[in-house]
């Protein structure tokens, strides 16, 4: 049986030759992402800003009447809703701010009234509408969710960098951390640009991206470490190229298989998973790219060399060598 090979044997692509232009492009993209987050903002879901979210499916139509729905709900006097399609074109999410009230209890009562009014209005005007879910998150809880989410993310990233530092060298820790920051930034940029809803599930997706990208980076780094021990005299640029080329078949193969699962989940899976499958799929592209172009070249600039992994020659070693007549 002839086996499939995605990448020919013994490739020798000079990846690192273009490191500077790629770095510049990446830095620009990162800056653009942050700018997009700053100007457009993330379309934060009720998890993070509080409020009511109603999800509904218009079972009998192929497309949800978003514009009319928006007018109808705005006409109820609770403010203008944010209405978005998600997944199928006949599925929508309707988000409302929490109404103002004197205390938490009153806000909750008003919010319940509001939800009932909106659901009643929808059921009266659009026969065949199915209410799929209602989320209601108070301001206090939403800010807590945001804080714990960010804290978890930061703690995980720092701990990862420390582990890599211990197992490899500090330069590798910095490189891995930088690649992670790069991936997370671009993903956030994507969400700022597309205005896809950003909720707790997306935080989980970003975590999956971090996990994947890290795995990729470590595979490349592991080969770098191995080659540093093996070819002590090889110039670092050549050595990094060799390492990336040697791991290339694996990189492509793994990205392909993971993407297959994600594409299936995106286009065949439930509407609720679309956002986060899309986020992870995007992150896999970015993560693969960053392992090659972000994580590897940074080692050149941080001046990694084989000394880090080769034990120093001690005085006794030297005496033994002299005794053996090697020097």
């Amino acid at each position, binding site marked *: *049986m002839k*086996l*499939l*090979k*995605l990448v020919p*044997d013994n490739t020798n692509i000079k990846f690192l030759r273009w490191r500077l232009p790629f770095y510049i492009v990446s830095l620009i993209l990162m800056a653009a992402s942050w700018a997009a987050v700053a100007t457009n903002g993330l379309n934060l879901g009720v998890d993070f800003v509080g409020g009511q979210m109603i*999800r509904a*499916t218009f079972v009998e139509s192929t497309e949800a009447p978003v514009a009319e729905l928006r007018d109808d709900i705005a006409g109820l006097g609770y403010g203008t809703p944010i209405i978005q399609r998600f997944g199928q074109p006949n599925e929508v999410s309707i988000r409302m701010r929490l109404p103002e009230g004197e205390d938490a*209890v009153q806000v*909750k009562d008003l919010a*319940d009234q509001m939800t009932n009014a909106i659901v009643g209005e929808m059921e009266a005007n659009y026969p065949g509408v*199915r209410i*799929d*879910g209602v*989320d*209601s*998150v*108070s301001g*206090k*809880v939403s800010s*807590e969710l945001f804080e*714990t*989410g960010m804290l*978890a993310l930061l*703690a*995980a990233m720092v*701990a*990862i960098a420390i*582990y890599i530092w211990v197992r490899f060298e500090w330069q590798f820790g910095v490189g891995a951390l930088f690649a992670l920051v790069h991936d997370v930034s671009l993903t956030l940029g994507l969400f700022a640009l597309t205005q896809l809803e950003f909720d*707790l*599930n997306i*935080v*989980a*997706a970003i*975590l*999956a991206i971090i*996990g*994947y990208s*890290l*795995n990729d980076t*470590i*595979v490349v780094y*592991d080969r770098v470490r*191995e080659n540093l021990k093996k070819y002590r005299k090889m110039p670092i640029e050549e050595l990094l190229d060799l390492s990336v080329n040697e791991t290339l078949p*694996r990189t492509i193969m*793994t990205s392909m*298989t*993971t993407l*297959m*699962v994600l*594409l*299936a*989940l995106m286009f*065949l*899976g*439930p509407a*609720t*998973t679309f956002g*986060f499958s899309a986020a*992870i799929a995007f992150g896999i592209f970015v993560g693969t790219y960053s392992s090659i172009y972000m994580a590897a070249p940074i080692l050149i600039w941080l001046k990694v060399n084989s000394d880090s992994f080769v034990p120093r020659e001690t005085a006794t070693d030297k005496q033994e060598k002299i005794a053996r007549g090697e020097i």
Partner: protein
Amino acid sequence: MLDFPRWKRIWLWGLTLVGVFMALPSLTMLAGERWPSQLPDPEINLGLDLAGGSHILLEADTGQVRSLRIEAMEEEVRRALRDADPAIAIGDISTANGRLSFMVEDESQVDAAREVLLPMTEGVGLTGQRDWTINVVDGQRFIFEPTDVGLNQAVENAMDTATDVVRRRIDELGTREPTIIRQGDDRIVVQVPGLDDPQALKALLGQTAKLEFKLVDQTALPTDIAQGIVPPGSQILPFAPDASQQGAIAVRRLGGIQGDQLTNAQQGYDQNGTPVVNITFNQEGGRKFAALTTANVGKPFAIILDGEVLSAPNINEPILGGSAQISGGFSVDSANALAISLRSGALPIDLQVVEERTVGPDLGADSIRKGVLALMIGGAAVLAFMFASYGRFGLYANLAIFLNVLIILGIMAALGTTLTLPGIAGFVLTIGTAVDANVLINERIREERRRGRRVVQAVEVGYREAQRAIIDANVTNVIAGVLLFLFGSGPIRGFAIVLIIGIVTSVFTAVTMTRMWVAGYLRKHRPSDLNI
């Protein structure tokens, strides 16, 4: 590396089979079939985002505990000093500023008062720390202040009781497998699968159901009440919105009885067919109620629920039978809810809903069906791809992935963890890393073969060299997973738990199990070349 004695093979297969067996009930459930009930059935819990249902996060008003304790202390102090021999008179009682202060009228009784009161400040715990501090200022004024230790203990007890009460109330609703967990210092999470409309549930949980009977202060002038002028020793309470009377009424603060000493509460009807709640006191409650009504025939008393007056009927005759009827403009539903609340006991602390999520059961079922289908198609593509790329070694990898999925499901079911949408993201990631482990190994074997190593050596080197990267990658992911579990909330934890379990099992299946199979193949067939 390639040496697998029989005992090791038996062990590895045994572990795998246990994992797979634990997964079977969950698989039949996901396929929509029933698992025979006579077999042990650790099914995986599906999160509400997948199965549909209601998630409600309740938060307690812990500040309330302080004022309730001070109120209770006031009654205790009054009773203790009144019952002392000789009785000690006190005055100028204040419960403002989070403390209880009062004057002992006769200066010569201050020491006697201290003697009586001191034992009341001791904590219930074994730590020997006091629940209250007592200070005597200006010679005659006693100041009681609750200590933090005592307060924390009180909040802790109140939350435990509240959790029990919530559980009893939900059990009364007869819903399927609710989850009720305390979270943090002041929160309770309630999850009820399959519940479509959470309104009834929320109404039930939001009601503190503190029932009190207090005498109406008939000396208070209606004009004073309207202006909010409170007669000494009384308090002004509003009527409930549905009560037959409107406005507010003054009642005596002390000397009433609590409605917590009940044996039963049922919804019923009065002679006019209006819904009411019939309550039956226990022995002690019945005795107190009889005493109160006997001593106050002809006077009105207020029936108070959660600080609102339901009605204020006249006591026409002593009520000695130990049962009473509460009316207050109820509907059948609200009377029923009140009956449930009273039966299950009052909440020791007010709870309010701070987060609520409902997923319709249709959507949930739909999500599962589509999700399972998508994962099966995606998975099949991966398996086909692996086989096309690595031949026999691809088959081993595929078998490992297949077993891995089953074992993850099995462990999750056995541990009683919940599979949520983010959990599926974790699944995709772990399957990705499991596939990756085999890709790493197989690519390395290819590489070593190209460099001219002999078959057995190439396999050995392949596993040894690939393993280093696999371990490093997985340890970092486990570190991340553990931190996410510790710091994260809800969905993030759902992701982390799958990640942690999945990484451990994927190293086991993708590295150890495949190595055993490859070793078996090499020993049996002794191939001179590998098609990889």
